[in-house]
């Protein structure tokens, strides 16, 4: 699954570590999500969505769509 987390982080001037801390996950997990190597759970996706104040579908994009 593709996502816009890296872009949103840059727009909010936020490091992976800061986002990880706000989401209560490890920096490695944020890195894996950004690279599309790990798909987050729905609760984590909602947390990220809430932090960036963007709807989930605007952050996470289905590869097949």
């Amino acid at each position: 699954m593709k996502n816009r987390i890296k872009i949103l982080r840059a727009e909010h001037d936020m490091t992976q570590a800061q986002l990880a801390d706000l989401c209560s996950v490890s920096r490695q997990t944020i890195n894996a999500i950004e690279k599309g190597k790990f798909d987050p759970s729905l609760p984590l996706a909602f947390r990220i969505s809430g932090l960036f104040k963007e709807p989930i579908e605007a952050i996470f994009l289905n590869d097949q769509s």
Partner: protein
Amino acid sequence: MEQKDAGFALANKKNTINLGLWTLTWLVSTALVVFGAKFLWDFKATISIVAILLNLAMGLGMIMAYKRYLMGQDEMQRKIQMDAMALSLGVSVVGGLSYSMLDVVNIVTFDAEISHLVILISITYLLAVIVGTIRYQ
């Protein structure tokens, strides 16, 4: 909640240290049972039973510490751990039974010891965690 207040990384570090200490304690109590009976109390049954009960208590503590460690991890770290545990369980059942059969049909000259199985599980688990961690980098 306490873990989130303390910060994820800090809570994770505390849980890891806690697990390490419990594992070390369990390991020492295991060595005490095995070597103590031979070198310290000359196989006196009462002391051996007390030492084994102590070992069981330490083992229970280690299991609880591991549970806390897992619960304190995030979803990706937990997935790496779960994958590693599933693989080590499969390898230990299949490999352990094959190894045991080698002993039963006298293909191997030595006895198949439980410690060999523990070593196999540990190495499989360790390698699976390393591979899992690299895979998500």
